[in-house]
């Protein structure tokens, strides 16, 4: 147990070993660990961000859905209104058309009736003249009685 050159030799060995560690052992380990730490931190941050954006997206989705629902309801309402309008219009048109058809039919019927009356009058006047001829047994001067006969036919 005496101090000798061993001490110096050990000190040199120590210095070399420290140099080796400083130069070759520590930096790669530090690099690897720090890089991994950074990666983990980045991953966590990304996960947080993802979660946040997911929340935002869900919120937006809900908003959009609401909007769409509202719009849909609006459209349905408008459509119903429009349908009611169209039905009303159609009804009106149909009614007008019906009225028109009925009116024209009525006027036709009136015309027909008038024409029939006219004809009947004519025939009746002819029949009346023939009857009178038969009764009187003599030729009635058609020309002289024409005015009277026409008057008669009109009165019928």
């Amino acid at each position, binding site marked *: 147990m005496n101090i000798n050159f*061993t001490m110096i030799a050990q000190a040199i*060995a*120590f210095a070399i070993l420290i140099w080796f560690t400083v130069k070759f052992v520590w930096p790669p*380990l530090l690099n690897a*660990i720090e*890089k991994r730490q950074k990666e983990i931190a980045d991953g966590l941050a990304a996960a947080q961000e993802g979660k946040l954006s997911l929340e935002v997206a869900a919120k937006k989705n809900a908003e959009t859905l609401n909007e769409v629902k509202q719009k849909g309801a609006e459209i349905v309402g408008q459509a119903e209104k429009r349908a009611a309008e169209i039905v009303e219009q159609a009804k009106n048109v149909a009614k007008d058309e019906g009225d028109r058809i009925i009116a024209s039919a009525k006027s036709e019927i009136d015309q027909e009736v008038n024409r029939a009356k006219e004809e009947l009058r004519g025939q009746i006047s002819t029949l009346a003249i023939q009857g009178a001829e038969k009764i009187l047994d003599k030729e009635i001067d058609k020309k002289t009685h024409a005015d009277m006969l026409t008057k008669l036919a009109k009165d019928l």
Partner: protein
Amino acid sequence: MADSSYESPSEYIGHHLSNNEVHLDFLGGGSFMTLHLDSFVMAVLLGIFSMGLIWLVARKASAGVPTKTQAFVELIFSFIDNQVGNIFHGNRHSFVAPAALTVFIWVLMMNAMDFLPIDIMAKFYGMLGLYEWKAVPTSDVNTTFGLALGVWFLMIYFGIKVKGMGGWLHEIFCAPFGSSVWVWPANFLFNLIEYVSKPLSHSLRLFGNMYAGEVIFLLLGLWAATGVSGIIFGSILGAGWAIFHILIVVLQAYIFMMLTVVYLSMAHEGH
């Protein structure tokens, strides 16, 4: 388990505690120019082995999912990094933390050599032709003092580097009592004692613990040579001491590392 070739217990203990000395005649010889080959070779081998292993892992360290070996190395790394980070407030990654890692691993490995059963290992070394071979480098005061000396020089180096030569000298003469000329001698004496006591306490604490541990193993080995009861008690107590020694080995390595970090951070921060 005293060998029959030992004449007395003191020879047994003395033999186990003596180093394999090589006289360096080419450096002039003398008692100082002697190398404890066992301490030096074991220290260098353990240093290359342990730091080389870590280097092999560090070389291929990936930032992705680590292998189990890498995870183990990273465990040690983070432990050291945390410890240093608590004490040293500066860029620890450039020097102090890797130095602390070296100190911790190296001293731990050297201390751990104490677990090898001395007499069986002595037989093994004898087969290799090494009749005096102390396997625990840290139970040689030269090793611990060599390490402490290295830290001591680093301390002075960083003291000068951080504060500048003027600042460092100013601190030596003006701290801790003040900058008045009348207290310069007191300050200087104080700092001198500090600079002397630091490496002494640093190295002798580790040396004393490891040396004492070895002596107790030897005493238990001696007891085991006295008969049946000695074998039983020697074995049980030897096992008990070995288990307790696990704590001492790790604790002393840890203390040595922490003191290294403390001294270096003191050199950085000053009074």
